[in-house]
Each structure stands twice: as C-alpha cells, then as structure tokens.
C-alpha cells in the first residue's frame, strides 16, 4: 500500500498483497498504519472485492465516525457509480448487532479502521444522478435496495450527466473515484477543497428535482426477510448480496430468482414469498410467477400443491433432487451463482 500526502488532496493507492496483514492509513494520521490479523477466508473473499470499492468503504467508515448528523452527498453519473457508491455506503449499515453474516463475507466492512465506531449508523445521504441511470439502478438488485436504504428520507434527485466523476462528499472529506476502464483509484480531499465541493453539492441538491423512481430498502428487506420468512432467510438475502458484490461483473444479481431458490431450499409457500417480494418493491407477483416457471424449466425449483379448504390449493416451493443435493453439500451460493447472475 502507498499513501501519498500532498497537503489537502491525497490519493489512496491500496494494493493489498495476499499476506496476512492489512494496513489502514487514517485522514488524521496519514502515517499511522494499523495492522489487523486477517483470516485466510477473509483474504479469499477480499480478493474478490475491487480495490477501489474497498478504498471507498474505508473512506465511508472513517467519515462515518467524523460527523454523524451531517448529510452526505453521493454524485453518481452512471449506473456503475450508483452500484459502487451505495455498496460503499452500505458499510455503515452492517453493524455487529444487525449483521448475521458469516466470517469472511465480502459484504462485511473491511479493516477495522482506527477511530471508527463499532456502532456506526446509516448517514443521511443525498444521492444525485441522471434520471436514466437512477432508473436503471432502480431495476437492479442490490443497487436498488441499497439506494433505497441510503436515501430513505429524501429519495435521490436528478442532475445533468457527465459533469462530474463518481464522488462521495462526507462530513470532513470528499472522495472521487477516478476511472479509465480497468485503471481505478480513489482520490481524497479535505480542508478547503472539501468545503468548496460540499458547497457545490449542496447547491446542486437544492436545484435538483426529485427522481421518479420507486425503490426497495435493503434495511427493510433484511429486517422483514427474517421477520416474515424465517431466521435463515436473512442469511440467504445476504448471500445473494454477497454474490452480486463478489461474483457479478456489474454488481447485480437476479433478486427474484435468488429469493425463490432460497424459498425452495427452506420449502416455503410460494404465496408468502411472492407477497413479500412484491411488498418489498423487488418485483411484481407476475414477475415472481414467470421466474418460478423459468427455474422450474431449469430443473432447480419445483412446487407441490397443498390443499386448502375452501379455495384453490397453494404451492410450496421445493428444490429438485439435483439442486437439493448440491444445496446440502455446498450451500445456497453455487445455486445463485449458476442461475441468478
């Protein structure tokens, strides 16, 4: 790792070697290096998380400790910017109390940053982006649910495209994601430069119109998954998010398909699952039915009828024998990776 300090503008160049330590430089103490032991599983998963995303996650973790009540600004000119920014901002929602992830999950916050609180709460985030890109994000999981979670109070707003790079304006510093195809790094500014960019973002926000999008909220999805469909189901949602973050080229997974496969693994009623999906704004009931048929054709999910009196029989989702054997030996992840990416 190298950390270059040039006054008020710095560039974090994190090149995590596959060794057994990780190092974090803080904005307050740029020369400070914290060494945190990592497990082998951590390293395996980390290698699947792009470096610039980890850098943004670190930025978010540090800034979350700097000013809890100050709104953030996320300027997202493209869909991939929405995916990256909301993924980094999701760091603050994964607190130890609410997080049921298994060790080594790629969606957990990266290194424990010195100064960052263990109970960081979701900051108020004002997301600005072009309408077209926000609409695209609203149709892709988990970007839609993360966007819904971080903009719970206000919703995103619309600004002109292409005038800015993906930018996160935190309470005391600003991070700019610099990209040229495969070359990516995060540039961080604080002091007067942060103040100027923050003023600009505030004015852009004040002048912008509300985006016309309907978004689920990942916080609610996580909470209600456990509440409505059972304790194991929340872990399955996390697995789907994890697959999107670690295995998907564009950071997106077919949420309906993943939920249906999970429902089949837990042998839940299709009616309950499709109601929950529709209620969470993830998709319509018609989409659920169509996707269930596709998974049936792919020999992953099957259904059995259960009589109800009065009324039509209801369907229970089950994995096919082949899929069940794979689930029992390898878990849900490979089924989602194979059928929902």
């Amino acid at each position: 790792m190298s950390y270059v300090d040039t006054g008020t503008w710095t560039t974090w160049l994190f090149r995590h070697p596959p060794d057994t330590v990780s190092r974090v430089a803080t904005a307050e103490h740029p020369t400070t290096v914290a060494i945190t032991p990592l497990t082998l599983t951590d390293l395996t998963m980390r290698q699947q998380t792009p470096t610039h995303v980890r850098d943004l996650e670190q930025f978010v973790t540090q800034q979350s400790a700097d000013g809890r009540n100050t709104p953030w600004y996320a300027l997202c000119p493209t869909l991939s910017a929405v995916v990256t920014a909301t993924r980094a901002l999701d760091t603050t929602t994964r607190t130890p109390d609410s997080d049921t992830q298994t060790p080594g999950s790629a969606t957990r916050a990266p290194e424990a940053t010195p100064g960052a609180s263990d109970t960081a709460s979701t900051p108020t985030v004002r997301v600005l982006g072009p309408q077209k890109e926000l609409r695209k994000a609203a149709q892709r999981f988990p970007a839609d649910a993360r966007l819904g979670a971080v903009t719970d109070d206000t919703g995103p707003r619309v600004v002109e495209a292409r005038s800015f790079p993906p930018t996160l304006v935190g309470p005391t510093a600003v991070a700019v994601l610099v990209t040229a195809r495969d070359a990516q790094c995060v540039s961080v500014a604080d002091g007067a430069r942060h103040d100027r960019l923050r003023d600009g973002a505030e004015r852009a926000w004040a002048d912008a119109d509300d985006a016309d999008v309907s978004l689920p909220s990942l916080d609610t999805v996580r909470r209600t998954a456990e509440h409505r469909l059972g304790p194991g189901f929340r872990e399955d949602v996390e697995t789907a998010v994890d697959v999107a973050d670690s295995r998907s080229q564009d950071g997106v997974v077919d949420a309906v398909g993943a939920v249906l496969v999970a429902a089949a693994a837990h042998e839940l009623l299709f009616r309950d699952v499709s109601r929950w999906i529709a209620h969470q704004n993830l998709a319509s009931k018609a989409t659920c039915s169509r996707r269930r048929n596709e998974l049936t054709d792919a020999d992953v999910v099957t259904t059995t009828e259960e009589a109800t009196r009065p009324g039509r029989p209801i369907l229970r989702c089950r994995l096919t024998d082949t899929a069940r054997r794979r689930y029992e030996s390898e878990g849900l992840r490979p089924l989602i990776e194979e059928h929902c990416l």
Partner: protein
Amino acid sequence: MSDTQAVDALATTITERLTPYVDEEFLLVDPAPRTIHALARAFDTTTFPHVDVVASESVLRTVRRNFVLATRVATAVAAERCRLQTTDTEDLSTLFVSPQRVCVVVVIDDVVTVRELPSADWTTAFHTEARETFVDAEPYPLRTPTREELLSADDSNLPAAFHEDFETALAIAASFDDPEAFDPVRTALVLAARHAALNYDVSRWGERLGVASGATFSRRKGQLEDDDHLTTEEVSTGLGRPRQRLLLTDASGAVLDDGGLAELLRRVHE
C-alpha cells in the same frame, strides 16, 4: 453561475494546470461539452500542450451543433493541436492524461477543480487505458470550417465587408443564451443581403466550406423571405437564367440602423 462563467472558470483552471507542461502530449478522456469548450478556449494560449480528445458521440454532436464552438475546435484540429475521436466506452472519468501525469476534472454545480493525482504509480496504468481507448475509438468528422476559412476573403466572390461582419457575428453569437441557436446559414444570408451580394455567391461559399448544402441555403432563404427579413431582386447574367441579389427588407434595414447588427441577428434567430 451561468454556463459561460463555468466555461470561463474551467478554461482558466485548465490553462493554469496544463500550460507548464507544454512539451507533453495529453489525452482528454470523456469530457462534457463545456470541458471541450474550455479546452478550445485554452488553445488560445500559444504555449498550451497538444491534447487529443476522446469523447462520447453525443458530446461531440453537441459540440458540432454549437457552430461557434465547433469552429474553434475545427481550428485547433486544423492546426494539429488536437484530434477528435468518438468512443462508446462508459467506464471513464473526465481526465487529462499524459505519460507523466493524470489530472482529474471535477465540476459540481459552480465548483470547478482540475487536480493532478499526486502519485506517479498510477500514471502508467491510466495513460495506457486512455491511450487504448483513444486508439480503439473512431475519428469524428466535425464537418465545420475553421475560423480562418470562414473569415478569409480568398477564393470568395463575397465582399470583404461580409467576412468582417461574419467575424462580428461570431462574437455576437458567443453571447447568445442558447449557443446552439446560432445558425450560420441564416447569418450568412442576412449578411450577404446587407451587402447586396448574390445568393449564388453566398450559397456556393457556404457549400465550399461545408457550412451547409445549397439546398439548405435555398430553404433558409425562403424562410427569411417569409419572415420579412430579406428580399431578392433578379440580376441579368446575359446568358442563362438571371441570378438573385439578396437585399434586406425595409424592416430589417430599420432594425440594423436602430439596434445594430446584434439586434438584427437576434431577431433573425428568434
């Protein structure tokens, strides 16, 4: 801050940031139209480095629609101070990249910054990606004359005063609220009428420089006649069909006398 002020601020910042590196060859990656506008202004500085531009087609189309800006860019291209390429690559930030440095352009509302990344470690990676993006991209035909071609009286049967007026018109157009509203064909026809030039000469001049086709000149002339901005009189050529001399109508002549060329052009573009 108006768009003009934003372009001014960006042009100043770009000039300050890149002028010291006049010997380097930069690539400008994924600029917005206003960044290209600022770059075209920066080219006014004689000691500004060569900058090749690789942008999305929609951005370059916007540049082409803004005639005044397009002539500036065409002038820079003709002087081999830059080249234009179009790409559909999406994963790009707005960057000035040379083999020696990477400068990031950030414009948020009225705040403009052009920051050089402080580490040389990344320069090679960014330059390689930017260069490959440029090489993979397609040349963009701007189809716009240079400023010198527009204002030159050489090879033109139009009076020298027409070309002087056209230079004034370009300056006036730069102050339009909507820069894309400026129509070089309408402008040329009205200026030709002011100097009682032949329609044949102005449309041939426009066609030769690539301003527009003869059919477009003919269509615009009809519109200007319908709107009572200009009229024509026939001039005998001895052999063949008579030619048309363009003349301002009395109403346009009065506007010119009272409000000057700026007012006449404003009305012609309403």
